[in-house]
């Protein structure tokens, strides 16, 4: 992946998150910070992936970051964290591998369908693990 592609991904991650923030009716004063969260978590994913070469670890780190970032903003604005989680985590959602798994399965290409299906499951598990990890830490700190 060259610099230009990375730049394009970061910019589109920002605007994609902004799109979701608008779509879900997030208040104007949170728009920038929450979209920035999406861009930063994707940037972190790319950075971790570039040296660990492991999708699960990279996605886990990015989703833990997204959760911490949202909890931090939530605390600062005294608002529910849900508001910030979605824009921050949306670039990690495996829309692409889900689509390819589906489309190969329909066309009878079992090998490729398996590869992409496996990818989708890894992504989803990593996001879920990231959410679990942060939520548990938060619960521990409250008691």
């Amino acid at each position, binding site marked *: 992946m060259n610099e230009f592609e990375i730049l*394009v*991904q970061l910019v*589109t*991650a*920002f*605007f*994609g998150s*902004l*799109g*979701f*923030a*608008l*779509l*879900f*009716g*997030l*208040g104007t004063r949170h728009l920038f910070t929450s979209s920035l969260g999406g861009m930063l978590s994707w940037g972190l994913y790319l950075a971790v992936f570039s040296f660990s070469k492991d999708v699960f670890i990279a996605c886990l780190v990015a989703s833990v970051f997204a959760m911490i970032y949202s909890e931090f903003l939530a605390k600062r604005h*005294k*608002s*529910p964290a*849900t*508001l910030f*989680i*979605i824009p921050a*985590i*949306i*670039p990690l*959602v495996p*829309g*692409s591998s*889900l*689509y*390819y798994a*589906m*489309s190969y*399965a*329909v*066309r009878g290409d079992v090998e490729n369908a398996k590869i992409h299906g496996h990818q989708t499951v890894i992504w989803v598990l990593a*996001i*879920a693990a990231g*959410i*679990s990890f942060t*939520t*548990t830490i938060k*619960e521990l700190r409250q008691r």
Partner: protein
Amino acid sequence: MELSKEQQADLLDCLLETGQQLLESGAEISRVEDTISRIAKAYGARHADVFVITSIISISLEFSGTDFVSETRRIYSSAGTDFNKLEKLNSLSRVVCNNLISLKDFHASLSEIASMKKPFWLILIGSMLAAGSFAVFFGGSIYDGVASILFAIEICICQNYLDKTKVSTAASNLLISLIIGICVGLVCRAVPALHMDKILIGDIMLLIPGLAMTNAVRNILVGNTISGAVRLIESLIWAGALAGGFMTAIIIIDTIF
């Protein structure tokens, strides 16, 4: 603070309304339960037993020894998302818990929040931006992004129409993905420079029940296993409907052309 029988019924009504609106704007279950019992206790209930799942809110309040009130409300659509409303409700409940405003004012603020509606243009712009960006994000060209934006408009119009009918979320996902899949397929056959996969991925991102899934996982973790599991199964069914619609569209396009 002692409430008369009438006021107790009023309070119960306000609590149900708060709960329903929280659910309908995309709050997680634990937040709904927590908010309701906090407000009830702030108004002098000794015990507040609240049970919420995605389709039901059930509240029992005990004021003193023999003084009970209880009511259940069935929720028909809990799939919406409105973060503006969610934030307003959250700060309202903060105000209510801290410096007890009168029940009448509480009611008035609630109906004010209830009457707020996300403007259609905002949903439209948000969807266009998200679909276009993600089509390029996942490796599409600029033209794929533009096509994805155009189909996002189509999704919005379909969704807007289906929301007014009684169609369930699963059925509407199935229908929308089928229509979009066929349209994108046809356009891509007519204009070979476009990539069908990238355009569809951009539009899929709009329909994936991401919020429902994240909330489900968070609910299960904080101990709301039943509601979390219900939500998780619901969102898996929605995602399944989505996949089914697109698959059918791909098969139709592949067989005809």
